[in-house]
């Protein structure tokens, strides 16, 4: 991924800080000051109790909860990157997020694999978190 060609987020006032933090190499999740619930993706309210959530920096460490190896995708630019791993990452803090597992052979990925975040800057103020074996 030398030049970013994939689809990009269109950040808004709620999601913008997440993407900006990723551009600085930080992974943010949200934590509710009222009930303690942690959540991903970032939202305008806590999904557990409805209060205003706050940002919390996550460790960037997690495990592969489940994954697939994408071997067919007609859409550019992904069709030129096959095969690649799409995974659900269970963060050490609890929430799950989608990402790609990079820096290893697709066949080496397994459920429970420890991984850590790394970040690619896609555009001004937009970093995208990926995960690689820890």
């Amino acid at each position, binding site marked *: 991924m030398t030049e970013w060609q*994939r689809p990009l987020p269109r950040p808004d006032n709620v999601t913008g800080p997440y993407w900006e933090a990723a551009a600085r190499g930080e992974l943010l999740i949200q934590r509710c000051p009222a009930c303690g619930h942690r959540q991903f993706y970032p939202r305008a309210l806590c999904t557990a109790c409805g209060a205003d959530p706050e940002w919390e920096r996550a460790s960037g460490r997690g495990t592969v909860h489940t994954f697939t190896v994408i*071997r067919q995708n*007609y859409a550019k630019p992904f069709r030129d990157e096959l095969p690649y791993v799409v995974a659900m990452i269970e963060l050490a803090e609890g929430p799950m997020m989608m990402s790609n597992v990079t820096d290893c052979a697709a066949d080496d990925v397994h459920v429970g694999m420890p991984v850590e975040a790394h970040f690619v800057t896609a555009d001004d103020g937009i970093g995208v978190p990926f995960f690689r074996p820890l």
Partner: protein
Amino acid sequence: MSVPDRTPVIAGIGLSDYPKAPDLDAVQHHALALQRALDDSGVPKREIDGYVSAGGGGLMIDDAVTMAEYLGIDHRWVDGTMTGGSSFEFHVQHAAAAIRQGYCDTVLITYGSDQLSRMGRTLGTGGFAREGQRVPGPIQFEVPYGNSLVGAYAMVARRHMHEFGTASEQLAEIAVGVREHARLNPNAMYRDPISVDDVVNSRMIADPLHKLDCCVISDGGGAVILTTAERARDLRQPPVYVLGAAGAQTHWNISECPDFTTSGAVASGAEAFAQAGVTPDDIDTIQFYDSFTITALVLLEGLGFCKQGEGGPFVAEGHLRRGGRLPLNTDGGGLSSCHPGMRGIFLLIEAARQLRGHAGDAQVPDCSLALACGSGGWLSCIGTVILGKEAPE
């Protein structure tokens, strides 16, 4: 003085042309299916006073108000609930309540899609966003990673395999059994017999799902007419009683799925069975949304036909096959016959055909209770409908 029986029944069903109908657009699929449901039921069109469309049938706009205008339905009750492919099971839940309450007497549900003829076969692996596109909303957290629709279900299958030891060969049994039924349907897209080896040796699309674990892409449309048991006495077909109808949502986008091995089939199934006063052992045939083999397996477990995690061995015992104790998708399903994008209405139509005793070579003997279970999104919104040949007590 006798009170009119407002028990909701399916009184008419109609299919448009499938699996390929290049001359029909989505709206025309709705219209053709309605014409055939009117012929089937004997309901005069002017009697329809409730209407439902989920839209989503292709490039055409076919939402409820557009379609009510096009079809000429002057409704006094309307619903446009869109939960993906399970929309039509949710529609039955809503329509049944509306009929019982007297908000309307006769409800029409229609669906039409020109998916194959207008958009080809890219639904499953065409990606969710274009190169360089900037995407707002919750899927901004998915689109940078290149997942596909098949990939979403593949992650469910992978987790199920990890937790319960489910094998690809067991999932393949589902595709093999549904293909046996497709052989009996002259309109089915694929009718040649397949084996477990054929499925597991077909091309991998998104591990662990092979090409033959995935449903077909077709054109098609359907219409269902519901009315009161009272009105149905004077109509053409034996009534099919709505005994239970319930829905549940656990997430929408796959990345928000709270548990990759289960679904809203647990909650919606329990509620529908309670309404109907029956148990899984009482059901004679199941019509499931088989977008993928794993979809059917997760629904089977969630509804309680076997315990969670035991779906693989259960399927391998052959119960879902023709002649088994719980035949699945007797029309050939989405896996072999017809999947224009949102399959839920065809589950209702095939269940009704079975309960009327009109299923021809695919008829399940002594069929008196059928269950239709639709999955919308990525096992996100599950709707369960229990239908019966006899009036509820």
